[in-house]
């Protein structure tokens, strides 16, 4: 050992004490740093030196700097922080909605309920006091408003808290990233210098973990290399090594409709256990459990209020009743009924016909929209769904193609005219829903029974009945005993329009008379302008009347007897005598039967035969409005094309842009063309035939041919802006003809332009009797005649009429007035036989199916002996326009009994006409399985009793119908009012008819608009079911409404209790939740504080301790310095010896 060794030892001590002081200073500096763990410098002796057999120490050094932590406490503190934050959040969240539940000074919903029921009590005690009714209306609105406000506040908080979750997710994501980053730094530092633990980095990571725990519950696993694995309680990995998995919102939603929390990385499944701790856990708990429960409880209160009140109220009445009553809830197609196959109740004869023209009753109601088809597998899970778009112009085949093209495990086909939907696969099923097109309803697909109709309280409907009472405009009861409507939810539907009751037509052969089914009967009337269409059928006995504008030529291949088509042109003269079959028989080389019953228009020859002239009154210029406007026809822009045809009688109206010039060789009569150009002036009078005749050098071109064909040997004329006043033009197969007015008379309100001209093609002039023409101010004092000369305008005719009075002769438009008899517009008249442009079945076998509503049957109709059986018309299915059959009528297939005779022979048939000239319309008799049918049946039975002597003095005008699934009862303009009583079925309450409240829960709760607008309509009393009497001071309904206050009941599966109790229980539930949250928070806070104290006991910095250590190190440092000083002195002494 040398003397310098002591110097070395002193020096090592100085350095060591100084480092220890550094550690101590670091501790003091971080005394208030969150998460800081105090550090301790562990001193150690340096390795000794062996000299002369002795071991001499070499001084001191710092072995390591250790971080003072207890890992179990750290872990427990993290969990505790998580719980503490969760309950802090829950407590704060519950506190935020405190005002929703009111206070003793303003009890909110409780006060509203008290006011509501007290108002009913006061009304019960002063039932004739209008002020009390106003008070009830005010109280009802207040109650609705209170409930709605409570819901809005709760819902707003629910949404707010959900939005706050997003902010917390962002915070958590930053921490997860930080932890991953610190993992890397710690590992790097501790691997490179294993003796130097990354104390501060570990503290930072621990603090990040604590902060993350405060947001979401986590689990941690420490790896040997110092890194940390962090995951959720459900095992979802959040951070590992340097990998950070970020949180985000997923696409799936919770039961309360909010997006789940998922990991951004796949699989994006909801995180498990996320709601068990942390701020987010508290938020999720608040959002889904607390607020969600309060909202559902509030909705339950509303549900019970709505149905409970309506159950009483709908049985009541006011003395001030309405002439109409509508359901507050629409009956929907049920989405709950699944089946392996669905077949439409309605059938079509041809599946290629547009839905709108399919002949199905109410087909015109089909609108552009869609329905949803859902397929389920054998396990009942949804296997696919498709939205099937529907347009009125679609056909059933289109629908089939759409379903089959959807590829969702469902097939469609048309079977015997019915649409059949089938699920593919064993045990698979289908359901239809969300029909905005009315296709499902119209075709009778899966129509719902009352108890599965989608009405909110449908399950409350039970077998029973209710009574309808009708009153005259003075309030006097009409049907004193009321009419009872029986309800059975297992068999009753709201509307049966898709399930008509008319008799089946299958196999029935009509021997005489005629039956027009689904089409228009043109017997004895003018055909509409245009051409026959392929598929039209004409009877063999068809005769063209002498008043027709000309004979009808059927080109080759256009008439079919079912086997062959005509090989030669058949002409049916308008002689009023020749039948179609005799005309065929007289045609040489015609090649088809001359004795067939019916001929069908075919397309073997000319695709679109030139139409026989059906034109009656032809509008040459100006316009006529008969509900729709019939202006002259403007040709489309472009040129005539080869093959286009123009009629001889074609006229170019004055409103045309110019004359039409047909170049040389462009007009053909079949054998020759025009040798020079032919000009058709736009004078509104010159026909094409006349123009040809007037053209010098036109050649041999016929001037009398019915029509001319365009040929391309010359340049074809331009059609742009050309307006045709008369005649016909066919461009590319489309006929452009002047307008023929439909058969019938002008109606009051029709308008005619002043420039209206009647063409010579019209059957005669039109005489407007005195008072039938109005210029808006005045009308014609004498009759005005508009000649069919093709030139005189209506204005000119009025001006030329002597004594026409003050009627303007320059008015733009004239309106048909209400006085006088409007003139007939009928032009062409079919003299005999019949024509159906839809379908007509004279003496023919009817197609399979049922009669449809709107079909008409002549009184002379007989059923042939060859029919398969009698035809039975159920009660209410035959109408003479005023009365219907009260009992079923049987038409025997004896070939002789006419329908009118059969009706006359039926006992108790009622007041229906029985003359042979009567035409009967097939009506929906009103199925006993529908509410609409039952009501209409009951009204009919009252109005037309079996015994004429029992006929009422005043007929009930009540009619039931549905629109978009909403039942409507209407007494029309009779002034009759409607009352209800004795509903034992709950139908009225479930469908919210004669109801006080509407809605399914708090979301859409509302006071009935009639009541809200007119408190005199509030039901106070109850109609006497036996006498229909009700008096102003009858307080039975008001009294019962008041009694509801303390009545225990439930309509939604909750425990039966009173409305007041439901509200006070809700308040109690909230209060107990708050108390529980506060207790939990107190406990968790105490736990957290205790753990924090424990952590501080281990890791916290104690200033006194550090200062004492400082003195300790300072003293050691001073002593070490003294050693050096002393050694230095010793060295000086030694050096002195040397000197």
């Amino acid at each position, binding site marked *: 050992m040398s003397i310098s060794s002591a110097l070395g030892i002193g020096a090592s001590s100085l350095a060591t004490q100084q480092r220890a002081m550094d550690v101590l200073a670091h501790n003091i500096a971080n005394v208030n740093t969150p998460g800081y763990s105090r550090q301790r410098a562990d001193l150690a002796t340096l390795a000794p030196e062996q000299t002369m057999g002795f071991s001499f120490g070499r001084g001191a050094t710092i072995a390591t700097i250790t971080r003072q932590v207890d890992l179990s406490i750290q872990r427990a503190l993290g969990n505790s922080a998580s719980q503490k934050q969760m309950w802090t959040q829950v407590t704060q969240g519950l506190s935020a909605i405190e005002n929703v539940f009111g206070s003793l000074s303003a009890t909110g919903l409780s006060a509203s309920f008290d006011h509501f029921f007290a108002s009913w009590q006061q009304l019960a005690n002063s039932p004739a006091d209008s002020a009390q009714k106003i008070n009830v209306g005010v109280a009802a609105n207040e109650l609705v408003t209170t409930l709605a406000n409570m819901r809005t506040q709760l819902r707003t908080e629910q949404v707010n808290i959900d939005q706050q979750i997003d902010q917390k997710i962002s915070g958590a994501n930053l921490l997860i990233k930080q932890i991953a980053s610190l993992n890397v730094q710690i590992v790097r530092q501790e691997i490179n210098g294993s003796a130097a633990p990354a104390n501060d980095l570990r503290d930072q990571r621990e603090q990040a973990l604590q902060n993350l725990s405060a947001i979401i519950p986590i689990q941690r696993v420490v790896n040997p290399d110092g890194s940390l694995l962090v995951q959720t309680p459900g095992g979802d990995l959040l951070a590992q090594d340097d990998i950070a998995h970020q949180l985000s919102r997923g696409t799936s939603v919770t039961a309360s409709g909010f997006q789940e929390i998922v990991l951004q990385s796949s699989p994006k499944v909801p995180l498990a256990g996320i709601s068990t701790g942390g701020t987010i856990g508290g938020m999720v708990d608040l959002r889904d459990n607390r607020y969600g429960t309060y909202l559902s409880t509030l909705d339950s209160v509303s549900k019970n209020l709505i149905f409970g009140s309506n159950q009483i109220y709908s049985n009541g009445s006011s003395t001030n009743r309405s002439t109409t009553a509508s359901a507050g809830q629409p009956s929907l197609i049920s989405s709950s009924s699944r089946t392996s196959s669905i077949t439409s109740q309605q059938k079509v004869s041809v599946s290629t016909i547009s839905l709108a023209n399919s002949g199905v009753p109410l087909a015109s109601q089909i609108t552009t929209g869609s329905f949803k088809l859902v397929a389920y597998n054998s396990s009942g899970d949804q296997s696919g769904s498709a939205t099937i778009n529907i347009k009125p112009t679609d056909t059933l085949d289109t629908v089939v193609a759409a379903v089959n093209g959807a590829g969702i495990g469902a097939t469609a086909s048309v079977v015997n005219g019915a649409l059949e939907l089938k699920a593919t696969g064993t045990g698979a099923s289908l359901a239809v829903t969300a029909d905005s097109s009315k296709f499902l309803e119209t075709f009778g697909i899966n129509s719902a029974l009352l108890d599965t109709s989608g009405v909110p309280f449908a399950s409350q409907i039970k077998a029973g009945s209710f009574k309808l009472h009708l009153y005259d405009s003075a309030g006097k009861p009409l049907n004193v005993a009321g009419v009872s409507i029986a309800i059975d939810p297992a068999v009753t539907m709201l509307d049966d329009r898709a399930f008509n009751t008319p008799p089946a037509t299958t196999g029935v052969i009509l021997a005489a008379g005629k039956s027009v089914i689904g089409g228009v009967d043109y017997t004895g009337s003018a055909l509409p302008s245009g051409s026959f269409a392929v598929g039209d059928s004409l009877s063999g006995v068809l005769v063209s009347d002498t008043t027709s504008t000309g004979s009808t030529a059927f080109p080759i291949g256009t008439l079919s007897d079912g086997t062959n088509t005509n090989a030669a042109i058949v002409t049916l003269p308008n002689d009023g005598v020749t039948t179609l079959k005799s005309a065929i028989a007289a045609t040489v080389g015609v090649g088809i039967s001359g004795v067939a019953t019916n001929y069908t228009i075919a397309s073997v020859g000319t695709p679109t035969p030139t139409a026989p002239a059906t034109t009656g009154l032809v509008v040459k210029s100006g316009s006529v409005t008969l509900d729709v406007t019939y202006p002259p026809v403007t040709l489309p822009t472009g040129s005539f094309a080869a093959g286009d045809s123009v009629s001889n009688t074609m006229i170019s109206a004055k409103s045309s842009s110019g004359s039409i010039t047909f170049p040389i060789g462009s007009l053909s009569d079949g054998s020759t063309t025009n040798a020079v150009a032919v000009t058709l002036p736009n004078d509104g009078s010159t026909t094409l035939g006349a123009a040809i005749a007037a053209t010098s050098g036109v050649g041999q071109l016929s001037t009398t041919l019915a029509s001319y064909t365009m040929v391309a040997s010359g340049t074809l004329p331009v059609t742009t802006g050309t307006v045709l006043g008369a005649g016909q033009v066919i461009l590319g197969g489309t006929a452009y003809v002047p307008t023929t007015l439909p058969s019938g008379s002008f109606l009051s309100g029709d308008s005619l332009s002043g420039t209206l001209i009647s063409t010579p093609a019209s059957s005669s002039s039109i005489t407007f009797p005195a008072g039938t023409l109005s210029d808006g101010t005045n009308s014609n004092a004498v009759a005005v005649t508009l000649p069919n000369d093709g030139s005189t305008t209506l204005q000119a005719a009025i001006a030329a009429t002597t004594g026409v009075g003050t009627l303007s002769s320059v008015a733009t438009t004239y309106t048909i007035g209400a006085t006088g008899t409007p003139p007939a517009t009928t032009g062409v008249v079919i003299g005999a036989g019949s024509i159906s442009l839809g379908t007509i079945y004279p003496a023919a076998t009817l197609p399979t199916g049922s009669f449809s509503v709107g079909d008409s049957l002549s009184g002379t109709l007989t059923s042939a002996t060859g029919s398969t059986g009698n035809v039975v018309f159920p009660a209410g299915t035959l109408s003479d326009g005023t009365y219907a059959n009260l009992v079923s009528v049987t038409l025997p297939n004896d070939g002789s009994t006419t329908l009118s005779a059969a009706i006359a022979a039926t006992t108790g048939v009622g007041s229906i006409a029985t003359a042979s000239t009567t035409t009967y319309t097939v009506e929906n008799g009103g199925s006993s399985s529908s509410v609409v049918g039952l009501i209409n049946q009951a009204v009919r039975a009252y109005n037309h009793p079996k015994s004429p002597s029992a006929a009422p003095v005043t007929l009930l005008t009540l009619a039931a119908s549905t629109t978009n699934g909403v039942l409507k009862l209407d007494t029309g303009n009779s002034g009759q009012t409607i009352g209800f009583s004795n509903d034992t079925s709950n139908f009225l309450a479930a469908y919210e008819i004669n109801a006080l409240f509407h809605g399914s829960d708090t979301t859409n709760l509302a006071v009935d608009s009639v009541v809200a607008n007119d408190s005199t309509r509030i039901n106070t009393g109850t109609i006497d079911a036996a006498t229909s009497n009700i008096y102003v001071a009858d307080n039975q309904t008001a009294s019962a409404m008041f009694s509801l206050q303390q009545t225990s009941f439930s309509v939604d599966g909750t425990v039966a209790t009173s409305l007041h109790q439901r509200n006070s229980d809700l308040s109690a539930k909230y*209060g107990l939740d708050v108390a529980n949250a506060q207790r939990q928070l107190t406990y968790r806070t105490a736990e957290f504080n205790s753990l924090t104290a424990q952590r501080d006991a281990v890791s916290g910095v104690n200033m006194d301790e550090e200062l004492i250590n400082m003195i300790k190190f300072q003293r050691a440092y001073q002593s070490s310095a003294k050693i050096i000083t002393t050694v230095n002195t010793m060295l000086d002494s030694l050096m002195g010896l040397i000197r």
Partner: protein
Amino acid sequence: MRVSSVQPYNNLLQGISQQQDIRTKANANIAAGTRFQTPAQAGLDYKLSLDLRQMRTVETNALTAVGVAESQLGVTQTILMDMEKVLARAQVLAVQQSSSTSGPNERKSAGVEVQHLLDQLKSDANTKYAGEHLFSGTATDIAPWSVDAAAGTATYNGSSTARTVRITETQSVVSSEVGNDQAFSNSFQAVIKLLKGLQSNTVADVQTALGDLNSARNQVVAVDARAGAKFSALQSIKTSHQDMKTNLDKRINTHEAVDVPKLVSDIQLSDIALQASYKQISSMSSLSLVNFLR
């Protein structure tokens, strides 16, 4: 146990917060006069308060309803008493005019008075109270009686259902007498008979009417007595609801009222604790080794 330097400060801070919370809540309770105001403060207690207050509202409304019935029956009794007086006067006239001492002229004069009595009787029977006919049952918008003295007819036009007043959910009382009671028809018939007898100077009819009047008067008295019995029964109902309301008022007060002495005591204790905490914080700042190091 080892204690870190920040721990005493944290503990004191928590203590101060707790004491301040105690003071705030106590002050709020004293200001409101109730132990609690919201369900968040005491869930079950708040629910009980809602229930008790609702019951009290029911009782208050019941007493109001009793008042409605009382006034209807009170007016009914008044009118019936008036009818009885009319009949009594008619009886007097009948007695006088049935005597042979009365001549045609006296009877004619008496007939004029009886006509007035008949009008009064009709007016009584058609009395309106609060705009509603008192004796027409539930048809309060219809005058119950139409009288044609010449034809000798009196017709009831009202409803046969008596009016009721709803006291509570389960309690309802009849608050009127219906005009179709025979007391009314017999009264009219008896007076009409007397009137005709006097007008026609038919002593026999006057004597017969006297008997009918006696009978009708008794029947009116019976109806009046019935109305009186209903009125008396109402007093019992009223007392019952008043007692119930008083009990509920007491119960609500006991349940909700704040214990002021206890709260004052709590505030004082809190004050002491706060003062101690502040003192401790102050002393802790001087109790540090730093202060002793030179």
